[in-house]
């Protein structure tokens, strides 16, 4: 039964890191809790953080047999279970002793690694901890043999042979490197690739040059044969020299080409494999995570007196380290559940004609850009009726609702926080947490979890995670001649439709998808880019995107294809831009903008009602759309006014100052002018004055909008001939639209 000592060392090393991280999380949460009121919105979350951290430490410590740490963690967990259930009120003493407990776990871990005695009285401390009492350190000298004898729980561990090799864990040759550094390397790598591609281009030009020289030499030789004697000696000399020079050039180019060819090829190979390696740095085989579980399963089985075996398949599949780390907690919970709830005791198993030994299988399957992890047990399965009953009891659903739900929908309730089917609490699982941890853990990894079960046969969980968190897939498309990317996960489907398929619903264009009308928008309109879709083309590329229950059809110019993308943030001050999730780099290092479809969807569906009203108005009036010129040097004001007016169906042109406004007015006719006062080059007063003095423009109404609120300013505005004067701080869209409609 003894474990491979080398393997145990690896486990201990992993656990040391985990203990550090979890202790830190616990300390942070405890300190936060100290300053928090009971009704603070984050109060419960913070309690939960402590509880989960303790729960995780307990599980892992027991998994590798560090009972001292496990015992302390167990008590912290119990303490905060009571706090969570409000059977115990949180006192400063509890926080104090919990903080001490965190330190004690570290001390106990150290003692375990260095094979020294515990420098404190564990049973005494645990007793204090269990009661949440104040704890004062006793005289350190008093603990010696006395304390040692009390530690009978740990004695078996002390004698165990695997302890003798504990010094090994330090010598492992690994370096922890921050992800930032890796990102920086990836950045440089991409830069190198870009340069490599350029060099390959230059190399092609060199090849063309060589072909041309060869051709010229050939022509030259045919035209001027070498042995031919010319009557003109001067000509003879020129031809001879040129001949020699040409041969020389030919040789040089040939030499250069051959030399460079070798290096270009080599550069290409090295650069490509370097790029692959850079990507691979973050990947680790699944076995680094999974082989820990063999021991966990065996020990948990022993504690519950069940004989369980873990079978691993495909643990050489490689995943991102961050994904693997994120899978740890969910998988431990699934294994615990399987052993505690799933696998029956030996007698029951034999009665049902199953093997005495229970089996849990973990399969890791590489699905291309996703990794599927299947956890199967051959236990009792889950009774869907029980789940339904509990869901009803816990008021997660009503009786009538349950009747309409499918079995799969009912199983979903198991992922609800606070749902547990186990009636009694064991030390391994069944405290009412578990599957919600699994679900939230998977969501953090941009993955998901589903399950299937058959009563009496067993239960299977399917965990899907992306290969790496640093990249995902996106659809590249063209809009207004520019490339954009939409992440695949928001895309429901892509439709090539003819114009006749487009219907009109409440004044808006829509398309039927599975008999449901989905609103359509042109991407060029959404992004305010000039459209380049030929008006006569009948085939439209439509991307149906979804976010929650909302769907929207996006009409795009052209779909280029699918590619792997790494979304990079835009650097400050560009941080938050509407509709933009970030950028990704093309093979040649160009930036391609990744669109934030959820945001586009939400804002489109919000404004679509306004648009509908406008389109109806347009139909009833059938008059020419008023064209308004907005002059303002602030982009924000300009955009704001432009949007308000456009949404109301007006045609809008903008100018950044009085001069530009004046120039535009000379070329085009407008129904109305809206101008700011303070602008560079030519201010609003001057512009208005010019207009009111002009024969042709005099009749056009002018609205002045400004932040200058003084009476004198207002008077001056009206003196120069403005028809209305709106002060910015009393400026509302309703007010503006009212005045505009009066004047137009």
């Amino acid at each position, binding site marked *: 039964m003894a474990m491979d000592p080398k393997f145990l060392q690896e486990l201990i090393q992993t656990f040391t890191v985990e203990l550090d991280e979890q202790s830190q999380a616990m300390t942070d949460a405890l300190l936060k809790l100290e300053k928090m009121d009971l009704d603070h919105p984050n109060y419960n979350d913070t309690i939960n953080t402590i509880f989960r951290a303790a729960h995780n430490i307990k599980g892992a410590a027991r998994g590798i047999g560090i009972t001292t740490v496990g015992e302390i963690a167990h008590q912290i967990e119990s303490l905060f279970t009571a706090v969570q259930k409000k059977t115990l009120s949180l006192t400063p003493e509890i926080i104090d002793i919990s903080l001490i407990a965190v330190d004690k776990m570290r001390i106990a871990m150290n003692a375990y690694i260095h094979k020294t005695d515990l420098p404190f009285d564990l049973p005494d401390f645990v007793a204090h901890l269990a009661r949440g009492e104040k704890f004062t350190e006793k005289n350190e000298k008093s603990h010696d043999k006395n304390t040692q004898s009390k530690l009978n729980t740990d004695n078996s561990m002390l004698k165990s042979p695997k302890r003798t090799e504990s010094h090994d864990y330090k010598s492992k040759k690994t370096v922890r490197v921050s992800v930032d550094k890796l990102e920086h390397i990836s950045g440089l790598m991409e830069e190198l690739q870009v340069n490599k591609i350029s060099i390959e281009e230059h190399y092609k030009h060199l090849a063309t040059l060589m072909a041309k020289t060869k051709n010229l030499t050939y022509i030259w030789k045919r035209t001027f044969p070498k042995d031919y004697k010319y009557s003109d000696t001067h000509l003879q000399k020129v031809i001879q020299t040129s001949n020699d020079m040409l041969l020389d050039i030919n040789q040089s180019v040939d030499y250069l080409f051959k030399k460079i060819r070798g290096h270009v090829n080599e550069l290409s190979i090295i650069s490509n494999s370097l790029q692959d390696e850079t990507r691979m740095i973050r990947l680790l085989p699944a076995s680094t995570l999974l082989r820990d579980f063999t021991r966990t399963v065996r020990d948990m089985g022993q504690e519950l007196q069940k004989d369980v075996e873990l079978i691993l398949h495909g643990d050489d599949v490689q995943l991102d380290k961050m994904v693997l780390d994120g899978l740890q907690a969910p998988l431990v919970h699934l294994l615990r559940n399987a052993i505690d709830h799933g696998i029956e005791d030996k007698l029951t198993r034999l009665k049902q004609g199953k093997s005495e030994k229970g089996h849990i299988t973990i399969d890791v399957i590489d699905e291309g850009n996703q990794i599927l992890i299947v956890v199967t047990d051959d236990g009792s399965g889950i009774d869907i009726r029980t789940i339904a009953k509990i869901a009803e009891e816990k008021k997660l659903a009503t009786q009538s609702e349950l009747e309409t739900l499918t079995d799969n929908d009912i199983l979903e309730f198991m992922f609800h926080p606070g749902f547990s089917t186990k009636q009694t609490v064991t030390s391994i699982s069944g405290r009412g947490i578990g599957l919600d941890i699994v679900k939230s853990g998977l969501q953090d990894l941009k993955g998901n979890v589903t399950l299937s079960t058959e009563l009496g046969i067993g239960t299977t969980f399917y965990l899907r995670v992306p290969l790496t968190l640093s990249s995902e897939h996106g659809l590249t498309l063209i809009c207004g001649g520019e490339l954009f990317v939409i992440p695949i996960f928001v895309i429901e489907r892509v439709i090539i439709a003819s114009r006749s398929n487009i219907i009109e619903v409440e004044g808006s264009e829509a398309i039927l998808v599975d008999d449901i009308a989905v609103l359509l928008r042109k991407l060029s309109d959404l992004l305010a880019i000039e459209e380049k879709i030929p008006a006569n083309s009948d085939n439209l590329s439509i991307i149906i995107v979804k976010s929650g229950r909302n769907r929207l059809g996006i009409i795009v110019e052209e779909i280029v294809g699918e590619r792997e993308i790494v979304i990079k943030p835009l650097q400050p001050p*560009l941080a938050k831009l509407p509709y*933009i999730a970030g950028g990704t780099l093309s093979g040649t290092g160009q*930036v391609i903008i990744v669109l934030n479809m959820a945001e586009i969807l939400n804002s489109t569906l919000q404004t679509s009602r306004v648009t509908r009203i406008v389109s109806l108005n347009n139909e009833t009036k059938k008059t020419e759309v008023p064209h308004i010129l907005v002059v303002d040097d602030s982009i924000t004001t300009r955009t704001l006014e432009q949007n308000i007016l456009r949404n109301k169906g007006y045609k809008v042109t903008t100018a950044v100052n009085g001069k530009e406004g004046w120039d535009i007015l000379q070329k085009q006719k407008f129904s109305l002018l809206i101008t700011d006062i303070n602008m560079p080059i030519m201010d609003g007063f001057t512009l208005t004055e010019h207009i009111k003095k002009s024969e042709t423009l005099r009749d056009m109404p002018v609205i002045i909008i400004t932040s200058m609120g003084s009476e004198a300013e207002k008077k001056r505005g009206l003196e120069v001939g403005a028809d209305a004067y709106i002060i910015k701080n009393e400026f509302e869209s309703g007010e503006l639209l009212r005045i505009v409609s009066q004047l137009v």
Partner: protein
Amino acid sequence: MQIDKDENIGAAHFMPEDQADVKILEDRAKFLASIPLQTQESTHLIHYIRFRLGKEYYGITYEFAKEVMKNFHVTYLPHVVDYIDGVINRRGALIAVIDLKKLFHLPHSKTDNLYAIIITAKNMTLALLADDIESSNEFELAQLSPPFSAESSIKPEFILGLHKGHTAIINIDSILKECYDHLSA
């Protein structure tokens, strides 16, 4: 951490071991130490990179200018203020490209914007488009004459002052502030 160690090889590592060489170094150090420091106090020269926008010359101090890029592709950004030309990739970082001509209301032509001067300050990085990079130069703060504010279309706060009457030294802080204000609004 092991990586850092390599970078921290001290200057002592490069000290010559030969006695004669050491002597030369010591003498030189003494000589350098004896030069009075007054040069630094009397003239505080600020170095800047001089570049052209259309027919006008501008300068950016090296305190902010980090790099000059050529042959770059600017990607269009929808829904941003007109003087932001788009984004470029600078070794994996996506940074905003500012068209100073639009910000300063200067005339535009198609063959412009061959260079991008990368500037950083206050955790922000921007690429400023330039038609041509002229030279390095230096000025003293006291030498700068106030920018013309009356007829010029450029906001006065964008310019620190004119050097020798022809090169407008750009106030990077106010440019960054302008961009930041627009983008976070």
